[in-house]
């Protein structure tokens, strides 16, 4: 009877030993990482000089947590990656795959119904508007990054151009939102072309740093050109949008009195909600249509192989410039919507963090997948709001989520992408050729 027991322990012991060894190592690493940043804390004392205080209890707890975590992980899964794929049964994944086909229409219907369902809940409506703004920005950036494969780290610059265009045109020339909206889009597109020219010859990461620099230049100019933009104080009392000329006020000739409704501040919020929904859907529709046009094909071809693209006679200059211009145009639309919704803008709203957030939405959603971008925007901003009480920790969690999702699913949450042309399926190709 002792023999099988011994065999069992001899198999088990190495596991335990390995786990113990790994856990001790991680414990030491955690101790090294946290000792000076968590174990000790410098604080300005009453004299103004820095004083040091200790928090060894927190440190010990954290190190113990890391030790226990590594120990259990190695014991359960060994040293390799955690097998998540096998953790979900096949029936569930099949169900999810079949449900995925209905996800887009279901989301759309839900989005259309949000103001009806949550009419009383002003907070949820505002959150919906915010999410839709980022969905629109994500879809716009998706044209540049997902379709054309140009890494843009300064996308927020065009958002800023759109917002300031509307704010300046509306406050100085009293132009209405509906005239400014296309103007802001056109101006942003011009800035897109302006940025596009110097970066035409650049590849990959040089492109990334130049777009990042461009975004910072725009923000710094907005911050310092006091006489035009008001500097850090921004521009306030930007006119609110009207319902095609009918303002949302209590006065005679307003939206409420024309339609014989009782005045309510919610009317404007609902109108803004449908406005941004329409703008976002416009972005989506244009993207889907463009993918079927020669220019969209050229974008995707350029993403896959630029040299092959050029040798097949595609003009990469115009292809890149149109991608930048169209992506920028939608950011410009979103920007002027942002300005009219907030009524106040300042350079604070257009930092690199925003660019990173939009890029994260595009990549985490699965590049090139329209549905994925929408879901990622919903999950990220929804999660952001959900943890509003944990102000201090939510950015930490947000960063952690970005890393974890990338490690777990590098291709994004929705990684299946509709191919624009199928070779193995005659029907799809034939449909395309029509």
């Amino acid at each position, binding site marked *: 009877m002792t023999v099988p027991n011994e065999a069992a322990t001899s198999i088990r012991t190495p596991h335990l030993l390995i786990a113990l060894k790994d856990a001790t190592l991680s414990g030491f*690493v955690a101790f*090294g*990482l946290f*000792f*000076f*940043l*968590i174990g*000790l*804390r*410098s*604080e*300005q004392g009453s004299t*103004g*000089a*820095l*004083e*040091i205080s200790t928090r060894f209890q927190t440190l010990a707890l954290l190190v113990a947590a890391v030790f226990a975590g590594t120990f259990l992980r190695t014991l359960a899964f060994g040293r390799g*990656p955690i097998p998540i794929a096998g953790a979900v049964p096949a029936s569930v994944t099949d169900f999810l795959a079949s449900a995925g086909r209905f996800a887009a229409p279901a989301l759309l219907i839900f989005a259309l119904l949000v103001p009806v369902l949550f009419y009383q809940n002003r907070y949820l409506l505002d959150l919906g508007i915010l999410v839709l703004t980022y969905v629109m920005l994500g879809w716009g950036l998706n044209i540049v990054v997902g379709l054309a494969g140009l*890494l843009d780290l300064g996308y927020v610059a065009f958002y800023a151009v759109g917002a300031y265009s509307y704010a300046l045109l509306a406050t100085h020339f009293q132009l209405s939102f509906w005239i400014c909206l296309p103007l802001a889009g056109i101006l942003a597109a011009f800035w897109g072309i302006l940025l596009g020219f*110097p*970066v035409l*010859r*650049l*590849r*990959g*990461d*040089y492109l*990334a*740093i*130049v777009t*990042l*620099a*461009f975004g*910072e*230049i725009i923000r*710094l*100019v907005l911050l*310092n050109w006091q006489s035009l933009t008001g500097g850090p104080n921004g521009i306030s009392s930007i006119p609110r949008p009207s319902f095609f000329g009918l303002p949302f006020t209590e006065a005679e000739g307003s939206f409420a009195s024309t339609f014989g409704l009782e005045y309510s501040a919610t009317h404007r919020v609902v109108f803004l909600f449908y406005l941004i929904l329409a703008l976002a859907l416009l972005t989506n529709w244009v993207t889907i249509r463009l993918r079927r046009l020669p220019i969209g094909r050229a974008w995707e071809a350029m993403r896959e192989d630029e*040299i*092959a693209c050029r040798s097949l006679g595609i003009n990469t200059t115009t292809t890149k410039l149109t991608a930048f211009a169209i992506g920028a145009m939608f950011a410009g639309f979103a920007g002027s919507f942002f300005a009219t919704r907030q009524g106040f803008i300042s350079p604070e709203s257009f930092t690199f963090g925003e660019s*990173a957030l939009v*890029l*994260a939405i595009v*990549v*985490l959603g699965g*590049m090139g997948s329209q549905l994925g971008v929408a879901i990622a925007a919903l999950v990220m901003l929804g999660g952001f709001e959900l943890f509003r009480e944990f102000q*201090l*920790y939510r*950015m*930490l969690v*947000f*960063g*952690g*989520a*970005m*890393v974890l999702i*990338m*490690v777990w699913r*590098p*291709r994004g949450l929705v990684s299946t992408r509709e191919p624009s042309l199928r070779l193995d399926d005659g029907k799809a190709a034939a449909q395309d050729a029509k």
Partner: protein
Amino acid sequence: MEYFVQQLIIGVTLGSIYGLIAIGYTMVYGIIGMINFAHGDVFMVGGFIALTAFLALLAIGVTSIPLALFLVLLIAMALTALYGWAVERIAYRPLRHSYRLAPLISAIGMSIILQNFVQIAQGARVKPLPPIITGGHRVMSSEGYDVDISNIQIIVVLTTLVLMLGFSWLVAKTRLGRDMRACEQDLKMASLLGVNIDRTISLTFVIGAALASVAGIMYLLYYGVIDFYIGFVAGVKAFTAAVLGGIGSLPGAMLGGLLIGLIETFWSAYFSIEYKDVAAFSILIVVLIFLPTGILGRPEVEKV
């Protein structure tokens, strides 16, 4: 003339700090072709570790300043190197064979984590440290305008010079340097020839982080203030420096760092201080139009 010389001294000091950070970007980019967005924050972490370590040493009774600074240097380099190692291990290694954008996003996530971690752990307020290294020398003086070079400026420039020489030697002459250069040329081939790729990449991160921590100490000693947000601005500037000099090239990183430091200083001295960053970024864009791979970068060979 005197004013010019004074600005030159300031510019070179600032450029040295940028150059030290830029090395970390350029080495990592050279080997695995990714922008280590968290590197600027590793620099910031290095500064914070140095600050608390210095205060702790004073508190336990190490009163000799040179000894304390030496210990701080050792502690900060070692522990920041550990941060570099941990960042690579957690956020980049699992994504090594993924497509190009994946490690970039996880690097941005790591940068957010480090910034907010330090903000939570050490507070969001700016931490002032009274000047530790004081005194200086008068270089020249005429028409009532004095040109001074302070001891801390000399130390910053000298340390940078020594570290850069040492690092160049390491890359050129040692076994590790040879492995690094092999990995830079062809990762797969290097692994077939028996180079331990994981170890080489880890060590690149470790060395880059150690150099960044020295830059963090220099920053702390030179400016006397530190907060959790310095990593972003310094990181973007240092990355700009690396690209300007030609990413992947060591002398390029030093040259780019110096150039960015000088541009920034002279622009604020002679034009307007508000637009100094605009000037640095604009010059980057202009240089890249004419030299798409930076000043000292090798032209990329396009393979079909």
